[in-house]
Every structure is written in structure tokens, then in C-alpha cells.
């Protein structure tokens, strides 16, 4: 997760080293230590009340047999707390269809984990929003992927847009911190500004933009993904918009998720806008961030207990929490793939191998590289960096 507003506008600048890689609703980390344990996405159920075409989890209308029970979920949360996991993102499917969600959120909070939620927002009634806030929920990220017509087409249900906007308003009304999650594709890129404008008007000030991940039903969508020029253009628009709003005095937070070529782009953007010193400072911050987090700073546990290197990497599981503890799975040094992914910069091939930004990007998404047939350490097809940017003679920052 890359905070455009922090990097370009010093918004919430704090010098801390913990950087979450999922949207946890905070740019003010809970500690000044580097993030040692992964943020865990728990896909609590496969069930969803919507039918989004790009759903990375491939959710369905019914839960799966064998989903982790309330008791098992609590033991999992104990296990994660003992291991020092700082944040659990309750996700799905749609996590709000689980009637024990508030109970699990409260349990996580009591165990010392920051509980956050990823939801389609359509079930966020005032009662549930208040209940979640009481339970200790720290943040709700609500997905909207276009203006009404397009969003409802994506989500497969009429009225989903209106319900999500009302869900956001409800969160704001009950004082539950909330933000937008917007997955940018070739189909909805033109709606982006309209959605941000509309939600700004209802009082939202946090906007999180996701690049499309090629997993779940999203696997079939690579053909509608943005091309390099379009991606570059939309990231530029997001940077421009963030700067404009801060210059006007609006403290909005904007974040980019799921493509660490953004890190390289933002350094280049800063160099053009502010000059070499600022670009260098931003590079140093991004060095602390550490690049694509798969298998390191982000983990996922699916509804059946399988542990994945990220929430999007559904086709490979490192182990299952019903067999052994999360910590044992995550710390298993005998897994050659996990070791290699954690040593990525030395294993990258193709254009990433000699990219000057590989330390702050780490080659982007291994999952997209695999999906595109480039091999485990090949280039991420979503990289949009231009050749002269990639091949600069020297790293622009502390590495020299």
C-alpha cells in the first residue's frame, strides 16, 4: 500500500517505519518499529450477497462446507495475537453475512489486534455499524467500483451502488472510520473522478485505489485491465488530484494498492514536480516500506483455513491452520518458494532484474507474472515504468 498523500503532501508524516500493505484506515502506525509480522487478511466466508465480476475470492451465494467456526476463528485470533500480528482484515466473500462478525471483531480487539473490515457496504445498517464500532472495529473499507450504472453491473445487483453509499454515510454518522476501495479497470477508469467527487460530498476523506489482481473471477479480466499508458495516466491523475486537494487545504488521504511500480512512478513524479531532493526523500521512505509485500508483510487465511502468501494468491497455499499454527506455517524455512519470494530482488528476471527501482518495488506482483506466463520471477505485466526511468544509472536515493 502506497500513501500518495503522505509521500507527496507530507500528510500525516510521522517518520514511523511500520507500513501496512492493506488498507487499515491508518497512516499513523501503531508503533515506531518496523513491521515484523504480517497483516493478516482473513476471508471469513465464501458467501456474498453480491456477484461481482472481478471478485478475487470467487465468492458465491452460499457458505462453503467446513468454514472456520466461531470457536475456531477465536482460536485463530489468539494464535495470531500470540504471534504478534498487528492487524486482521476481516474480508470474504462478504464478511457482514457472518452473524458472529461483531463477536469476532471484539475478540480480535481484546486480544490486542487492530480489527478492520473490507465490505461491499450494502449491509451496513445503523445497527450493524454501531455494533461493529462498539466491538472495537477500527476501520471499514467499502468497495465501490463505478458510478451507479457501472457499479451495479459489476456487482451483479441493482441498487448496490446506492446501498454502498448509504453504508458509507451510516459509518460516518456513527463515527466509524471509513474509506473507499476502488479497483481500477479499463471499464471503470472514467467513473473514478465522479465517484470520488460524490463521496467527497457525503463527507468521505479516504480513497484507496486498487490495481486489478488476476485471481478469482479477476483471472478472466486481464483483457479489460488497463494498458501501460492508461495505467500511467490514471496514477498521474490520482497524484495530481491529491496535490490539488491538499493545496486547497482539504486533507484527503489517497492510497494506491497492488502494484509497486507505483512506488517507482511516484519517485519520478516527485522529481518532476519538486526536484531531486524531494524525490530522494520519497525514495528513502519507500525503501522503508519495502515493496511488494506478498509472503512477507501480508498473509491471508481463507475460509477453510488455508494460508496464502497474499489474499489474491488463492491457487497456492502454504499450509492450513487446522494442521498447525499460523506461526509454524509462516515461519517454515523449509519451503523453497517462500524463501525465494522473500529474497526476491536477487531472483528477479527480465526487465526487473536491472531495474533501478527493484528494491522499492520488488518486481511487483508474482501472481500477475505467473498469470501472464512470465514465470515466478518474471516481470509483472502491469509495470508501466518507461525505459529511461527504469534504467537510470544510479538509484536516486540512499543506496548510493
Amino acid at each position, binding site marked *: 500500500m502506497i500513501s500518495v498523500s503522505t509521500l507527496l503532501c507530507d500528510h500525516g508524516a510521522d517518520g514511523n517505519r511500520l507500513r501496512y500493505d492493506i488498507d487499515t484506515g491508518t497512516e499513523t502506525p501503531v508503533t515506531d518499529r518496523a513491521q515484523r509480522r504480517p497483516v493478516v487478511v482473513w476471508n471469513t466466508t465464501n458467501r456474498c450477497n453480491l456477484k461481482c465480476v472481478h471478485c478475487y475470492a470467487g465468492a458465491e451465494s452460499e457458505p462453503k462446507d467446513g468454514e472456520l467456526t466461531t470457536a475456531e476463528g477465536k482460536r485463530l485470533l489468539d494464535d495470531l495475537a500470540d504471534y504478534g500480528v498487528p492487524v486482521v482484515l476481516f474480508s470474504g466473500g462478504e464478511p457482514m453475512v457472518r452473524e458472529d462478525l461483531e463477536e469476532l471483531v471484539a475478540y480480535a480487539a481484546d*486480544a490486542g489486534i*487492530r480489527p478492520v473490515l473490507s465490505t461491499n457496504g450494502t449491509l451496513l445498517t445503523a445497527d450493524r455499524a454501531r455494533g461493529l464500532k462498539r466491538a*472495537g472495529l477500527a476501520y471499514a473499507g467499502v468497495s465501490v467500483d463505478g458510478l451507479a450504472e457501472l457499479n451495479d453491473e459489476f456487482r451483479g445487483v441493482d441498487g448496490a451502488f446506492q446501498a454502498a453509499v448509504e453504508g458509507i454515510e451510516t459509518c460516518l454518522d456513527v463515527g466509524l472510520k471509513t474509506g473507499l476501495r476502488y479497483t481500477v479497470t479499463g471499464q471503470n477508469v472514467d467513473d473514478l473522478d465522479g465517484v470520488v467527487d460524490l463521496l467527497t460530498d457525503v463527507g468521505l476523506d479516504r480513497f484507496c485505489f486498487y490495481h486489478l489482481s488476476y485471481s478469482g473471477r479477476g483471472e478472466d479480466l486481464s483483457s479489460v485491465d488497463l494498458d501501460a499508458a492508461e495505467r500511467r495516466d490514471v496514477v498521474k491523475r490520482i497524484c495530481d488530484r491529491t496535490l490539488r486537494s491538499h493545496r486547497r487545504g482539504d486533507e484527503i488521504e489517497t492510497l494506491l494498492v497492488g502494484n509497486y511500480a507505483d512506488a517507482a512512478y511516484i519517485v519520478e513524479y516527485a522529481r518532476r514536480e519538486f526536484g531531486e531532493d524531494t524525490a530522494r526523500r520519497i525514495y528513502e521512505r519507500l525503501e522503508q516500506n519495502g515493496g511488494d509485500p506478498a509472503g512477507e508483510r501480508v498473509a491471508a487465511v481463507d475460509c477453510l*483455513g488455508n494460508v496464502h502468501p497474499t489474499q489474491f494468491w*488463492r491457487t497456492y*497455499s502454504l499450509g492450513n491452520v487446522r494442521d498447525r499454527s499460523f506461526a509454524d506455517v509462516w515461519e517454515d524455512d*523449509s519451503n523453497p518458494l517462500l524463501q525465494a519470494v522473500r529474497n526476491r530482488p536477487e531472483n528477479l528476471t527480465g526487465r526487473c532484474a536491472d531495474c533501478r527501482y527493484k528494491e522499492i518495488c520488488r518486481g511487483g506482483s508474482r501472481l500477475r507474472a*505467473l498469470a501472464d506466463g512470465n514465470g515466478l520471477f518474471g516481470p509483472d505485466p502491469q509495470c508501466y515504468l518507461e525505459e529511461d526511468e527504469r534504467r537510470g544509472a544510479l538509484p536516486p536515493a540512499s543506496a548510493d
Partner: protein
Amino acid sequence: MAESTRRRLDSDDRAPHGSEFEVFVRSDGDDPMRHVGSVRADDADGAYELASRLFAWHANDVWICPSGDVARYTTHELADEASTVDRPVDGEEPRNREWS
């Protein structure tokens, strides 16, 4: 000792979609086979293809086995690992504590 508390885990498939296949690899002929997780695919051929994309750089031998066909006996039980956490009495105190 552990033997007496070991129990059998579910034998159902573990994939929310498709089927799950356990993956075992060996990098050299004199190494033991090593379990390296599982892959999700529609069938064994798809599972092998995926497993080899993930592990071909490392392994000479790649074996796969349908996850639901593995009989697992373990002393680990998720539901047994509870450490009790005190519940707040009135639900009013702040629940988030600093992680350190």
C-alpha cells in the same frame, strides 16, 4: 505421549473452488520428498502444471495428491488452542491496545 492425543482431521477437499492438491517436491535423487503446501486446480493435470510453475526451478521431482485423499492424524487442534481473553465488563473501555 502425543500418540494418545492424536486425532484424525477432516478428509474433505480443502478448496473453496476447484480442488486442492497437496504438493511434494525433491530437488535431488537422494533427498526426501518434502511437503511444500498445496495448489488449487480443476484436475490433477492442472495441479501438476501449476505446481511445476511454482517449483520447477527448485525440484527434479514433483508429486501431487488430492488433498481430500490424505488421512491426517495430528495432535494439533485449532479449537483446543484457546487462551482465554478477559472480556470487557461494560463494553465501554477502548479495546485496541498498542501492539508491541
